[in-house]
């Protein structure tokens, strides 16, 4: 390990680090624009200049590897002077439009100009102007402000895997842009906004709506996919204005998907802000009392086995627990959290988790994807798979519809033949998995929702067992969920009890009259037209499919409006926090169920959030272990039987609209329009 001296501090660092990284370890901050720890080194902004003893000229610390005995100075007048010079160059062509720039207040250039800027310009020449680019409906460009750090180019090429951005022209005429004005085809494009150190790329839907210092920031977790990405919600008053990523190296590193970032405008549209009761075929506004009374009247005399409950994709654990307890108090075993009908088994925890953990992808050395398109189902996880792929020694094979995953993989066919062949060890890829030290497989929930889902699960389990995926200290069997509420629901045991109905049976029962009352906790993705004459209670936050069919609507809180627990696909329980209060008369979901239980005379025995959480931890100790992943014991799951040779199709057609929130978002509608509806290239004249 080389030893070097930084500003008189002697420090020993890992070989191969750069001087800038060594400085960070020594606690010395180096200004920078182009350097970013998650991207390759460009060394083109020159802001990180430091002086090195016995070197004839200043060195760019971001691009200089550490060497034994280096003596670095970062705070001498010479270094200050160099940085001032670099800053002056950067500002030659940078407009002084900070007062009207959305980056103002959180701009690297602005901040560093405070320390290294000159209070007047020595240049009389006109500044250059650059035409606006059309990157995507999500990114507002103001390319005149660009300082050519190339972070966005490197992000698109390296992390997102869509090499569509580049620097064209040269010298003063260099411009960052796409190839012939094409919109970026990445689900991670919003991260470029965070990466841009100036105001060249800004958040388009958020444009001119707030200044960073006006916003209240709440650290919470995302629910629009099952990763549980750590996010920061910024609100002003009652409105969520934007969503930003928080660093969590084990989950999302510092990226979030475009849906996570931009669907937040859906939180203010189509909201259910008061209870509704259907009277003579029409939904009418009602008070909470009226709504509860309507439910109580309906439930009077209805047998427990005729009552059923389905929880939706965005349901939080607290409300699911309350629903489960209420249903058992009512004598019903018909509860199911597997809205999509995935044939997952709640009894073996390892059978429904992403056991290798998301960070575990970095140590895996072979991967089999079964009926999943991680690019759409968990974009950030796909970026990790891509990085692992680029590092080499990571053969990937996929079974199912062939899609562009942004990294090369072997396509083993669309049907289940290959799955059966690998399970029996006949397939060549089985050998690849066997020789790998840490092989992994990822089963998509789309595949498990098929009628032969349990058999697919069993086939995946036997692949895991036969190919050495389940060994001491490593479990490569992974289920990639799409819904934030699913793992929590399974952890709490929201599956039909003995003789109870599952989702398909409930829908069928509702149609033929066996189910008289159906309670939908944010469940929108079932076939509402087939519910017959059943009395449907919908508790949720958006006027989506479920609310349209409902007989009573109980307005709940969206994920930004409640303190709630979510379990991600790895089985990691995380706490979301309230950023804004639910609109109108809407309430936090578990409190609604608690209040309803009192009206029904089956009062649940918890009054505070802490008591609910204590009960959750009682049911599953995992809930007591917040933010951590406990390895799940291997068990028996899936069912033997023949596989249906039908192709494994991808469950997500439109990445931008997968749930009630994103379906209500105008921004996501625009993305849908650009990326799906108008597949033929845009001309650039249509804005």
């Amino acid at each position: 390990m080389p030893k070097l001296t930084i500003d008189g501090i002697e420090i020993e660092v890992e070989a191969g680090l750069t001087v800038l990284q060594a400085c960070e370890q020594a606690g010395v901050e180096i200004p920078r624009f182009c350097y970013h720890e998650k991207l390759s080194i460009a060394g083109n902004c020159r802001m990180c200049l430091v002086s090195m003893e016995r070197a004839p000229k200043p060195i760019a610390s971001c691009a200089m590897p550490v060497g034994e005995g280096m003596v670095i100075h970062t705070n001498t007048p010479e270094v200050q002077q160099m940085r001032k010079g670099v800053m002056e160059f950067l500002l030659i062509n940078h407009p002084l439009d900070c007062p009207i720039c959305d980056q103002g207040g959180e701009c690297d250039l602005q901040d560093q100009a405070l320390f290294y800027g000159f209070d007047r310009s020595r240049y009389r020449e006109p500044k250059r102007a650059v035409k606006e680019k059309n990157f995507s409906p999500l990114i507002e460009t103001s390319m005149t402000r660009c300082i050519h750090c190339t972070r966005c180019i490197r992000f698109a090429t390296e992390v997102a895997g869509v090499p569509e951005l580049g620097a064209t022209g040269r010298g003063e005429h260099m411009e960052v842009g796409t190839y012939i004005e094409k919109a970026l085809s990445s689900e991670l494009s919003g991260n470029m906004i965070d990466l841009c150190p100036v105001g060249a790329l800004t958040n388009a839907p958020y444009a001119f709506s707030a200044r960073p210092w006006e916003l209240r920031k709440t650290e919470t977790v995302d629910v629009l996919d099952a990763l549980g990405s750590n996010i920061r919600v910024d609100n002003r008053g009652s409105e969520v204005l934007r969503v930003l990523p928080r660093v969590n190296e084990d989950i999302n590193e510092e990226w979030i998907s475009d849906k996570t970032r931009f669907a937040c405008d859906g939180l203010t549209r189509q909201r259910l802000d008061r209870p509704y009761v259907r009277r003579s075929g029409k939904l009418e506004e009602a008070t909470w009392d009226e709504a509860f009374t309507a439910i109580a009247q309906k439930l009077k005399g209805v047998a427990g086995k005729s009552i059923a409950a389905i929880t939706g994709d965005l349901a939080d654990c607290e409300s699911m627990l309350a629903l489960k307890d209420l249903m058992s108090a009512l004598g019903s075993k018909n509860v199911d959290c597997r809205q999509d009908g995935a044939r997952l088994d709640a009894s073996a925890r390892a059978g429904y988790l992403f056991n290798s953990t998301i960070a575990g992808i970095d140590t895996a050395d072979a991967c089999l994807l079964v009926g999943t398109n991680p690019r759409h189902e968990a974009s950030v996880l796909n970026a990790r798979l891509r990085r692992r792929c680029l590092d080499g020694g990571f053969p990937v094979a996929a079974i199912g519809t062939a899609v562009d995953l942004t990294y090369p993989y072997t396509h083993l066919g669309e049907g289940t033949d290959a799955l059966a062949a690998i399970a029996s060890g006949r397939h060549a890829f089985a050998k690849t998995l066997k020789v790998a030290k840490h092989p992994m497989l990822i089963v998509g929930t789309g595949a498990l929702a098929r009628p032969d889902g349990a058999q697919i699960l069993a086939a995946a389990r036997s692949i895991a067992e036969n190919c050495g995926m389940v060994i001491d200290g490593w479990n490569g069997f992974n289920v990639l969920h799409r819904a934030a509420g699913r793992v929590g629901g399974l952890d709490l045991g929201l599956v039909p009890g003995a003789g109870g109905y599952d989702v398909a049976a409930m829908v069928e029962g509702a149609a033929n009259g066996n189910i008289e009352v159906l309670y939908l906790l944010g469940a929108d993705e079932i076939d509402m037209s087939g519910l017959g004459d059943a009395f449907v209670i919908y508790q949720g936050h958006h006027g989506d499919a479920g609310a349209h069919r409902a007989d009573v609507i109980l307005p709940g809180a969206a994920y930004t409006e409640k303190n709630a627990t979510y379990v991600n696909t790895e089985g990691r329980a995380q706490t979301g926090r309230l950023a804004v209060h639910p609109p109108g008369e809407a309430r936090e979901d578990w409190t609604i169920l608690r209040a309803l239980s009192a009206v029904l005379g089956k009062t649940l025995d918890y009054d505070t959030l802490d008591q609910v959480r204590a009960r959750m931890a009682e049911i599953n100790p995992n809930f007591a272990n917040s933010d951590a992943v406990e390895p799940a014991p291997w068990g028996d799951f899936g069912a033997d039987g023949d596989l249906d040779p039908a192709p494994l199709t991808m469950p997500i057609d439109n990445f931008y609209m997968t749930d009630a929130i994103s379906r209500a978002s105008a921004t996501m509608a625009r993305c849908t329009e650009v990326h799906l509806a108008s597949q033929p290239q845009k001309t650039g004249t249509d804005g």
Partner: protein
Amino acid sequence: MTPIAPASEQPDTFAFSADNLAAAKAFMAKYPDEYQASAVLPLLDLAQRQNGWLPQAALEYVADFLGMPSIRVFEVATFYTMLNLAPVGRHHVQVCTNISCWLRGADTIVEACRNTLGIGFGETTQDGQFTLSEMECLGACVNAPMMQINDDYYEDLDAGSTQVILGTLKDGGTPKSGSQIGRKTCEPLGGLTSLTDDAKTAGKTPGKLKKPRARKGKGA
């Protein structure tokens, strides 16, 4: 940035001719398999020689040919002024106006071109014969001022010689390339100033080289 032809002028397709295809493969064979993108410049040059300029279809063709993203080829094509992304005349007159040439009278060369061809920078004559472009340093400062027409350099220009060169081209002839004042390569303007004597005829033979004295051993 070099001007890009509007969509109306862009051909739909591009493909190498048989000869160029062979040449392209020969270029690619020079690079290891994983570094095929290194052949992008020679391939773009081939494409430009075949087509006269580089349409988008050619950029995409080369990108596909080398298995690299279109934007990477586009970056290269916009970086080099030698690559034309819009049609140019048969004779592409590129006048250097950078510091050395400018000090030596590039302005008069530009004027001569304008007057002879009747076009300004970035324009093409009606008959499609000439395109006039302003260039940054072309690396022939010693023989400034100079201009490049297609593959040839014309150096030590003045207004008169510029007109002669352009006139010859107009008439379908081939003007003499290189220095227009008879200078041999980049020798000094007024003839050689050093190494003018022939050592042998001066009656001197080079002295026998002394063997360098062996250095005294350091500390030994």
